[in-house]
């Protein structure tokens, strides 16, 4: 369970996030929707420890992880699938799997699901066929799968997905959202960030619309699927067709 309270963060003195509150219970998908510059990636980076928040707290299963360095946060159980995938260009798929496989600590809080390379390859069989290929030579979809595998292999209790479908073909987009649903079913708390409400509502249990670093709308997933008007209005979009 991820809990963010009063999170303020920014760059070089300019504040981007203004006191954001957010919670993601275990086994649910919380989608954060907003335009470019709304602060989505800033939120993800602040939670993952890549950016030190100005104020506010980030709690993971009740434990305060605010301001910890990224590697400590990763070990505490927050996995990051970053925007643009950022796989290691020079490492093969097999090396990615070996590098990121980190059995959960025995004494720490229990993890919802434990992942081994074999289990990840079962979920993402395409990676198995590409074991010997370097990150740079993979297609966009394969890189996305690899980035997901990399995060999963630490058996995280929270998964941060930053625009996981950016630049993917429609068929792959559906596959990614199916995977997200599967992972939430395993008990992982998923924070999904997307610019597109139409995609986000496919699998979201909760929705937050972010505008200029503030939550302007919170909604239930079912409610938004039934009537996306409020959602689109919050994003100042015309009603979705069809």
């Amino acid at each position, binding site marked *: 369970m991820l809990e963010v309270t009063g999170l303020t963060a920014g760059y070089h003195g300019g504040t*981007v996030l203004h006191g954001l509150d957010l919670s993601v219970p275990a086994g649910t998908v919380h989608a954060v929707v907003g*335009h470019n510059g709304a602060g989505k990636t800033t939120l993800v980076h602040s939670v993952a420890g*890549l*950016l030190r928040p100005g104020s506010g707290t980030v709690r993971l299963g009740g434990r305060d992880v605010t301001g910890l*360095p990224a590697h400590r946060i990763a070990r505490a159980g927050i996995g990051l699938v970053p925007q643009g995938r950022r796989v290691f260009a020079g490492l093969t798929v097999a090396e990615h799997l070996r590098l990121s496989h980190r059995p959960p600590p025995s004494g720490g809080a229990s993890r919802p699901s434990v992942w081994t390379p074999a289990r990840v390859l079962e979920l993402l069989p395409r990676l198995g066929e590409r074991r010997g290929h370097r990150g740079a030579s993979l297609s966009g979809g394969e890189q996305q799968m690899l980035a997901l595998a990399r995060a999963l292999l630490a058996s995280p209790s929270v998964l941060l997905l930053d625009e996981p479908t950016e630049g993917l073909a429609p068929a792959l987009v559906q596959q990614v959202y199916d995977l997200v649903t599967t992972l939430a079913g395993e008990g992982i708390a998923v924070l999904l960030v997307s610019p597109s409400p139409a995609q986000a509502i496919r699998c979201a249990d909760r929705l937050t619309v972010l505008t200029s670093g503030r939550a302007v709308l919170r909604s239930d997933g079912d409610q938004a699927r039934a009537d996306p008007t409020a959602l689109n209005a919050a994003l100042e979009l015309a009603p979705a067709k069809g």
Partner: protein
Amino acid sequence: MGLLDAHLVPAVDGVAYGLLLFVVASGLSLAFGTAGVLNLSHGMLYAVGAYTGAELSDGTWGGLLLGLAAGTTAACLVGAGLSAASFPLARRGHLAQALLTFGLALIGGDLLIQFFGADDLPVRVPAALDTSVSLLGHRYPAYRLCFIVMAVLLAAFGTWVLVRTRVGAAVRAAADDPQMLAATGYSPRTVHLGVLAAAGALAGAAGVLGAPIIGPGPGTAETVLMLSLVVVVLGGLRSLWATFFAAIGVGEVQTLGVSVAPGLAPYLLFAAMAAVLVLRSRFAEPATGHSTDGPVPDPLGRLVGRVGAGLRRVMRSARPKTRSASPPGRGRLPSGAAWRRAAPLLVLCVALVALPGLLDAYTISLAGSALALGLLAVSVTVLTGYAGLPTLGQTAPFAVGAYTTANLAAAGWTVGPVQILLSALAAAVFSAVTGPAVIRARGTTVLMITLAVGELTSAAVNQLKSVTGGADGLVGFPATQALWGGEDLFEESELYTYALVVAAVAVAATLLVLRSPAGKLLTGARGAEARMRASGHPVWRYLLVAYIGAGALAGVGGSVMVTVQQYLSPADVGFEIAAFALLAAVIGGTTSVVGALFGAGLIVATRDWVAGAWPGHGPLLLGVLFVAAVYLLPRGLAGLRGTSGEEETTTASPGPRDEPPVVSAPSPAPAPSPVGKAGP
């Protein structure tokens, strides 16, 4: 067969030498590629190993093994210390770390001499190996063959760790994307520490084993560092194999080359290096489309036209600025701020003009040298701060200018302005030739390439005795006249005034260009190169013009130095001077021309005044100055003024990919149709 026969021994020597360089250079390359540290104290790590090994060597196997353990451990610990010292600077970029390691190398070198003495230490190899074996009919030292085997084992072990183990994968991942590696649960600090300690251990082990080949002495660290840098530049940081072949090649040039063509060996290295750099810049770069954006019938003509146009624009934009007080418009500062900005310059001017009345003759001549070094520092500032090309090689055009002036004077051309202009021209031509290899690289690669350019120029200076006087330098050429028909300049205060006038004109011209639209283009190219390209700006051409201009400025500095000193030695244009100039630029704040002048003054003062009070420890003091400057003046002297964030450079901030400039952020009220999403 006869040829092979005659050169077999040096050829095998070359393999041993090359393997030694490979082990050392791979550590340098690892530290640079993974931890981002351009470790200019890497040669010192080798020296630590070599001294320890030599000290413990007693002609037995036990001595060798003990030396190997002790030397490796010592260098490993020094490497770990380097990591502790440089990690806090990681966010400040490569330049600060390079300067820090250079300072530490100066300090370490001084301490090693304190500890082990200033003479080369003898090394005793185990008695069993202190013999020669027969190699295709030649007698060959057994130790060297043994060394070849040990070096191969060491290299193979290192490669295995890097390529086959999880630790190696983490190290390579850190080179790719350190932030993502951290988000995968690996501590960046541990990786940094591990890499530098491992690089230290490799260098230390190489030092112990290689001591009979490159022995411990005062020059060891620099020799090893330079050769390793050459190997790394040639190898190109991409693959271990490339580094391996580069190392063997350099080893062969240093041994076989010397035996086959003694006179040409230094140039062989130079030629190989230049060829690789040019080839790489020509072919290995991703296509940018600039080579195809229209015909370029006469590059030089276009260049001259462009510079001319730039200058005309400068003159036009400069004129109204002096007349009208402060028109409120973009790029113009209100008069209060303008005064505050100009204050350091005014203070400097007044102080410089008043100096001759205040100081004794010796100090005045030092001040003249400081002005020459100041011009060099300004040229480094232009490249580092404005063009984004941090350079350790501006001593090359500086040397070209200096030797041009000295030779002109010797040939009877003693009129100051003629010397200045021709020196500037020669330096500009030199920069135009070397420029293409430099301007396509970015960041620390530029440091390495320019370092190579500077070093190889030094090598050429030492070789071309007819022009440069070789290691003896040039002395006894006629004095300069300030103007046509003027008196010869002999008095220190006259020489100082000459230097001051030249420096003032050169700095004023530089400031005018930097504050003109041309300077803005350069700043734009540094800050947002891709965007500049995308807007149709030929960024490389701007950088080349800047590089040539900075070269000319350095040439003027060299000319002034010769006139003031009235002699010229290779040390005046050596690596140390290059590092001083870079430090002066960094002390000044890298984007402050005036700061660079202050920095040069501070360095000359430290080198020649303070060191005079504690003889023999000049390097130590300078090293401390380097380290102190890096830690205490993160934004240089200019930072002390507390100006706006304008000088903020592109430091390693966590990439805000989601955050375009504020203007394009969707503002709720007045923007009815955010980008592309608005329906009918």
